[in-house]
């Protein structure tokens, strides 16, 4: 006899004594908070949104020198355009995050459900990548503006020898790369832990389709 058929016979015997929850127990359970990965993912998404919004707004209000600098840089149309663009991306992100979150349904097939969750994760990832690229672009860009508008800095750069310039370039690149590396590692850890099981199961399902 097939092993599974033996199991099936026992499985459907109904003799197994499961704990029987009463109506009252179930009512209580219905109102408890879920701890599903979808919820965690949504919290991470909202957290990202708040974090990058604050990162953009707070320095302006906390530091007066920074405020003055920003005010002058806003006279530059490139900076204004970049700013408008980043707010546009934030709106886009909210829209896509909401849309993909809403499309996650526990009544879909297992594969479809996993795909919807992975899609939501992708939306958050792209938003993070966008913000990181913005940082990466703005470091040399702000140095360049500083060079144009700050006569002292301008002089210093002009007086610098080739080797000094090389060191400046190197420092800028290394600092920018280090910031990116740390953030990238941070995200790998967060999503790695959160979605490890999902990725494994999704691969298992996909392997079947090959």
């Amino acid at each position, binding site marked *: 006899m*097939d*092993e*599974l058929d*033996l*199991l*099936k016979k*026992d*499985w*459907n015997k*109904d003799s*197994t004594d*499961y*704990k*029987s*929850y*009463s*109506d009252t127990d*179930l*009512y209580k*359970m*219905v109102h*408890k*908070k*879920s*701890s*599903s*990965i*979808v919820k*965690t993912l949504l919290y991470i998404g909202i957290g990202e949104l708040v974090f990058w919004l604050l990162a953009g707004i707070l320095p302006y209000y906390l530091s007066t020198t920074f405020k003055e600098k920003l005010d002058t840089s806003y006279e530059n149309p490139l900076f204004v355009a970049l700013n408008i663009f980043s707010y546009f991306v934030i709106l886009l992100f909210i829209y896509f995050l909401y849309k993909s979150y809403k499309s996650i*349904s*526990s*009544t*879909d*097939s*297992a*594969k*479809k*459900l*996993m795909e919807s*969750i992975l899609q939501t994760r992708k939306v958050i990832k792209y938003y993070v990548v966008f913000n990181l690229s913005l940082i990466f672009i703005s470091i040399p860009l702000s140095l360049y503006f500083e060079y144009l508008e700050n006569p002292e800095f301008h002089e210093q750069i002009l007086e610098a020898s080739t080797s000094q310039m090389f060191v400046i370039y190197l420092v800028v690149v290394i600092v920018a790369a280090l910031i990116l590396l740390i953030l990238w590692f941070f995200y790998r850890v967060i999503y790695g832990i*959160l979605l490890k*099981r*999902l990725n*494994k*199961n999704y691969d*298992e*399902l996909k392997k*079947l*389709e090959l």
Partner: protein
Amino acid sequence: MNKELEHSFVEQLQTHQNIVHKVCRLYTNNADAHNDLFQEITIQLWRAYPKFRGDSKFSTWMYRVGLNTAITLYRKSKRRISTQQFDAVEFKIKAEEYDDTEEQQLKLLYKAVHQLNDIEKALVFLYLEDKDYREISATLGISEVNARVKMNRVKKKLKTILNP
């Protein structure tokens, strides 16, 4: 929330709660984890309930949400992982005094099923619940042919686990 909706939901869940228990039995190793998964499945069922149109049976609908929760949505916490897996301990003692009764064989079988991965468990679960390949394929989101192929592989794998 609509009280009437909640009432009808709890009533139906109460009748069919063994389905949820059975999912928990396959996917967890101890009482704590069992109750925890039961709780999460209940929450997910309740959330999906407003969209339940009654065009499928309540029990059929429960299979899908229950398995989806166990395979994908449920997040194990540290507390659950560190809990002693008493099944494993019990198994060790029992295996020593193994005699060839059906009961012993069943114990080993359940033990073997627990060693399968999440997807394989889902196939076994649906098979045990007497679902046909059409429903298995729809629940998991794979083709019927692939569901059959996978099922055969799972049977072979179980045989290997039982007779190494």
